[in-house]
């Protein structure tokens, strides 16, 4: 990843989004993808979608999705949001510093707790031939468990459930009856929250899907997210 972005505005024409096929994604990867899509949409940027099974391995850090703006590329929601903020196309650039700090706190809350807790090994590695489709998911599972353990986060789903509920409660409180997290403007946090909430809402597992039912205002937020109808 190079640091210097191209100076002209031509880059906005050639944004490519690389992501996994939707049936091979983990829950949090799907959340990140939807968050990036939402963020690009509220930043009013055009992009083309490229679906690749090996997106995870194309990314140097293993973080998906990838945004490519030749010759640069950025992996994961944070890097992408930073880049777009750098280009002053960010939706949140008009917020005052106190609000920005609040927003970042919520973003890190979602990413640190909700993101690993969302893990399922559902369908991961389906594109690979046997016997790799047994080995690679197992390796992935081990690496995620290791990273959860290092960060002293719950590994067992029932433990994770209470963590998710804490985060959802915090988000629900912040949102209140509004349709935006900060005033009436759409920000990075809206995109990120939408991505992850939507992925929970659309999850195949009933148990995870039911998590949201206790927070009707979050469901309303998801269903009424303005720019997402075309995604």
């Amino acid at each position, binding site marked *: 990843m190079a640091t210097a972005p191209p100076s002209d505005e031509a880059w906005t024409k050639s944004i490519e989004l690389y992501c996994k096929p939707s049936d091979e994604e983990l829950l949090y990867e799907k959340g990140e993808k939807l968050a990036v899509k939402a963020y690009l949409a509220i930043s009013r940027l055009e992009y083309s979608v490229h679906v690749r*099974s*090996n997106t995870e*391995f*194309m990314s*140097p850090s293993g973080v998906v999705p990838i945004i490519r703006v*030749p010759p640069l590329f950025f992996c994961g929601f944070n890097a992408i949001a930073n880049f777009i903020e750098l280009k002053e196309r960010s939706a949140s650039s008009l917020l005052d510093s106190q609000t920005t700090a609040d927003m970042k706190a919520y973003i890190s809350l979602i990413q640190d707790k909700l993101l690993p807790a969302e893990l399922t090994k559902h369908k991961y590695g389906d594109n*690979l*031939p046997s016997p*790799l489709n047994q*080995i690679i998911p197992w390796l992935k599972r081990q690496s995620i468990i290791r990273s959860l353990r290092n960060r002293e986060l719950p590994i067992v789903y029932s433990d994770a459930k209470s963590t998710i509920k804490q985060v959802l409660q915090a988000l629900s409180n912040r949102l209140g009856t509004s349709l935006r997290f900060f005033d009436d403007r759409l920000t990075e946090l809206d995109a990120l929250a939408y991505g992850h909430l939507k992925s929970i809402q659309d999850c195949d597992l009933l148990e995870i899907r039911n998590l949201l039912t206790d927070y009707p205002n979050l469901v309303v937020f998801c269903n009424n997210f303005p720019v997402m109808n075309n995604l």
Partner: protein
Amino acid sequence: MVTMVNLKLKLNLHIKYKNAFDFFLGKMPNQVLVSYPSPVYKNLQYFYLVPLSTRLKNTHVDTIVDTLQETTGKGSSMQGAENEKRGATRLTKLTDCIMYFLSSISSALLYFGVIIIKSAEQQLKNKKIKVHNINIDGLRVTRTDLVQPKIHNVFEAATFEELVKEMYLSKNYLEDLDIFHPVNVFIDAASDKKADPIELDVTFRVRELSRFSAQFKTEVGNQDSRLVIGGKLRNLFGRAEELMGSIAYGAKKSTTLQIITEFGAHSLHFDSVWREIQCLSDRSSWAVREESGHSLKCSIKHAFMRDTRDHSVSPTTGHFIRFEQEHAGLGSLGDTKFHRFFLECQYNKTLPYNIVFSSSLNLGLLASDGQSKISDRFFLGGPLSIRGFQMRGIGPHSEGDSIGGNALWASGLHLISPLPFKPLQGGFGERLRTHLFVNAGNLGHIRSSAIRDSTEELIRGYRWSYGIGLLVKLGVAQLELNYCVPCRAHATDRISPGFQFGVGLSFL
């Protein structure tokens, strides 16, 4: 810049059958003899006579011993003009000899061996003998039908010289099986009293190696290296079968499961390889990045090899042909599908003044419908192929990274000569040679939609280079220091004019 590498800890299972050696049996004698044409090698041959002759017991063999002792006396005093002349040449050979075998054989023993034997050479050489019995001692697990055909040629020896030669070769065969160590050979008078006085018994005394062995090694090949940790089960069913399990951590290509069967010049491999392509650098090009990830290749590989060269690295005569075809993705195993063909030819001829003319040609073709990875494709350029270019510096590139092609041709012409004025002759100087070379070749894509056009493009868009260099022979490897002048290159090629250094096992 290293950008693309298959990096993965891999399990390597390796099963090897060494049964079908018969093809080589007829071929090997020439090869072994010619491969060290220097007088030194002769000394080595006769060196084996020393322990042999001391064990000769019977009367008729005693005469040989007597002759030996007599001539030893003469040889060491070195009387007579002719003897002096021979002594002088002998001395240089001896130096050479010591240099060569210093590490493995006691030089003192060799010294006496050479003196004794050289003088007795004539008498022994043409001594008529007949082999009466061959005994093999020390076979426990090994089946006799594995060993018998290998040493059968010893029966055909008609003179003492032939006998020693055959014994030496048989000993080599047995050692090559990699199941015995050490292998000792003894000659004795025939134990049968009624036997003709010129009849001899030959005894091979072997000790079988233990069935299990572990290894920890690093392998260095053509600009590639890897670390291998493994264990090996040897001589499983008594016919020198091998079952090898290993984990290889390498910078190029690794094998998961490999079964090799050899039928004379043909060999058949079944390979199953789990590859992971990773971009080591953040600056790797997008084209390489798009290839990254896991893949499984299951392939059948057939290779035909014919080698009449006298040495694999610095041949002076003979030719070499190797044709390899690999078919991956048979029966929907794995996610890699391609057909790969590769032909290697080399022809060597010795010209007057000890100059060796060497020419070689490589052709490669990969047919695939997009289900092959960058590691299956061909690359060209570097000190071992087209000199004057950087490693893999020829052909399609993307953002400075070589992305390989599906078709290649490469050729080389060499004129190799010993060093002028022959410094250090008989010693290290023998390992140094100079060469003039011309390389030409190209790497590209042959598109199935326009085969004729893309083939023409491949031929017309050739690259070539020439230069001069120094070659150093180091056992089975060769070291090269060349001054290269790339003459025709494309804009995207990475050239490397001037001095270039290379070390490897095979050269274009």
